[in-house]
C-alpha cells in the first residue's frame, strides 16, 4: 500500500434488506436501487468527499442479481444484470471515498436509505483500524496491532 496517509480512503459497508409491497417490476426496481446508489455517491460528495474511490453494490432478489458501480462525483451508475418482479430483496453496499469522516458517511447513508428505501433494515459495518502508527492498512485487524499489551478493553 502507498505510504501516503492522504491516499487512504474512508470505507463504509452496509447490508440492506427490504420488501416491495406490492412487488415492483424489475426495471422499476433496478432504477430504484440505482437511484439509491447515485444518492449515496452524491451524498458522499456533500459530506466532504474530494474523490470517489468506488461506490458499489450487489442486489439479490429472487433468482435475479444486479451489480452496480459508481465512480464519479456526478453519481453516474453503471449496472450489470437484470431483475424480474421484485418483492423481497437484499442489497450489499460498499462506499469507499476520500475525505469524509466515517460518522458523517454513516449518517448520510442512513438518511438516504430511509428516504429512498423507507422501512428497509440496515446493518452498517465499520472498518476496525489498528492503532499502530507504522501500519498503513486501514483494515488491519491483527490483534498485536489493534490492541496494546496493557489494553483493558472487553475483547482483551
Amino acid at each position: 500500500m502507498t505510504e501516503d496517509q492522504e491516499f487512504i480512503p474512508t470505507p463504509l459497508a452496509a447490508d440492506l434488506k427490504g420488501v416491495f409491497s406490492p412487488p415492483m417490476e424489475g426495471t422499476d426496481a433496478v432504477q430504484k436501487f440505482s437511484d439509491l446508489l447515485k444518492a449515496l455517491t452524491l451524498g458522499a460528495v456533500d459530506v466532504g468527499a474530494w474523490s470517489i474511490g468506488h461506490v458499489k453494490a450487489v442486489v439479490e432478489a429472487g433468482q435475479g442479481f444486479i451489480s452496480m458501480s459508481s465512480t464519479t462525483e456526478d453519481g453516474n451508475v453503471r449496472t450489470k444484470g437484470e431483475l424480474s418482479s421484485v418483492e423481497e430483496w437484499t442489497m450489499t453496499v460498499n462506499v469507499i471515498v476520500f475525505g469524509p469522516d466515517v460518522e458523517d458517511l454513516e449518517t448520510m447513508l442512513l438518511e438516504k436509505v430511509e428516504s429512498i428505501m423507507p422501512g428497509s433494515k440496515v446493518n452498517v459495518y465499520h472498518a476496525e483500524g489498528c492503532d499502530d502508527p507504522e501500519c498503513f492498512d486501514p483494515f488491519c485487524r491483527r490483534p498485536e496491532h489493534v490492541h496494546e499489551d496493557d489494553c483493558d478493553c472487553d475483547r482483551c
Partner: protein
Amino acid sequence: MHFVLVSGLLGVGKTTVILNMMDALYESKGHRIMVIENDFGNKGIDGEVMRKYGMDVQELKGGCICCTLKTGLIDTVRVVQANMDPDIIIVEPTGIADPEIIINAVQDCSGIEIDRLSTIIVVDAERFAKTWKMFERPLKNQLKVADIVLVNKIDTVSDEDLDGIKERIKTFGFNGPVEAVQADKGVNMGKLLELFE
C-alpha cells in the same frame, strides 16, 4: 503456474476486466483458473459478483494483501496450488495496494512455484485526467511493474483524450503495450489474451 496480478486504483474496472478475461481464457483455451480477491471494504462485493458469474474465488478480507494480509496471500496461493493446481492464478488486490510489494512477496516465497508472472495495470479513462494529478505516486508505482496497461472505459472519452492518456502514461516511464478497452463490452480485449499464449 501463471501468476497474474490485475491491479489499478479504486473503481478502474479490475473486476470487470477479470470477468471478461476469464470467459475468454476458459472458453478458448480451457485453462483452470482460480481468482484471489482482496476487496477493499468489510463486505466482499467483487468476490460475490464473480461467484454469481460462475468463477472459483478465494477471498481475503480484513486487510490489504500488500500489508497485513501479505502472509495470508502467500498461504492462500500455496494452498490453492497444492490442492487445485490451477494453470492460472489471478489476483485482484485492493485499489490502494502497491503491486510491487505483492510481486516481491510471491517471488521470494518458498513453496510457491511460479512459471510465469504477469502484471496487468488498469486505468480509468473517464477519471484519468483527475486521478493522475491526485494519485500520481501510487499510479507511477503501479506502472513501474506493469507488463501491459489497459485504459478502460474508453466509451467515456474522445479519441483526442485517449491519445493524451496514452501520452501521459509514457511520460510516467511506461513504454510497454497500452491497450484501450471497454471491458464491460469486451471491446479490444484480444490483445490482453496474448499474455496467456
